[in-house]
């Protein structure tokens, strides 16, 4: 399901541009910075996105997938402790 743009459908493709939210631009910047600092690379990001449970993958937007995958990779590498982000957001 990751190597094609979607499933056959009679619904017209939405070609409209949309304005990026602040958090989406921040997500892009975080991934770029982690790459430049050799913490995480694009292939790891893609691998983690492909590892998402299918229902979550299909429900998530583009940058929500980046967020999910970045958290996965940083937890794998021990940069983030399990639950650390949730705890910080809640505090």
């Amino acid at each position, binding site marked *: 399901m990751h190597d094609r743009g979607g499933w056959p459908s009679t619904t017209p493709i939405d070609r409209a541009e949309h304005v990026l939210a602040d958090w989406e631009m921040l997500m892009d910047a975080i991934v770029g910075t982690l790459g430049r600092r050799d913490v995480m690379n*694009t292939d790891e990001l*893609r*691998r983690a996105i492909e590892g998402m449970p299918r229902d979550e993958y299909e429900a998530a937007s583009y940058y929500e997938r980046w967020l999910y995958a970045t958290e996965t990779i940083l937890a794998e590498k021990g940069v983030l402790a399990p639950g650390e982000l949730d705890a910080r957001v809640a505090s």
Partner: protein
Amino acid sequence: MSFVPGSSVRVASRSHAGHHRTPAYLKGKVGTVEHVRDNFLNPETRAYGADGRPETRLYLVRFDQRDVWTDYQGPEDDRLLADVYEHWLESAE
């Protein structure tokens, strides 16, 4: 094996556990090398924290859409272009 523009190539039909950049819908399909790209770090090992060496050659391969999708209804001369790494290509000459 390396290829040149115009080479007839078949995408290997093997399965692969884990991350790889070869689209499932192209596996086993025959196309023509359109362009020889550069060498790149191997994403299949980089995806798991390795350095991706040795680098592997990337090719732009052209397929007839009618060869890719058995029920393709579009114009006969529609093409699909995809980047495929050398270790996923076999000679179909």
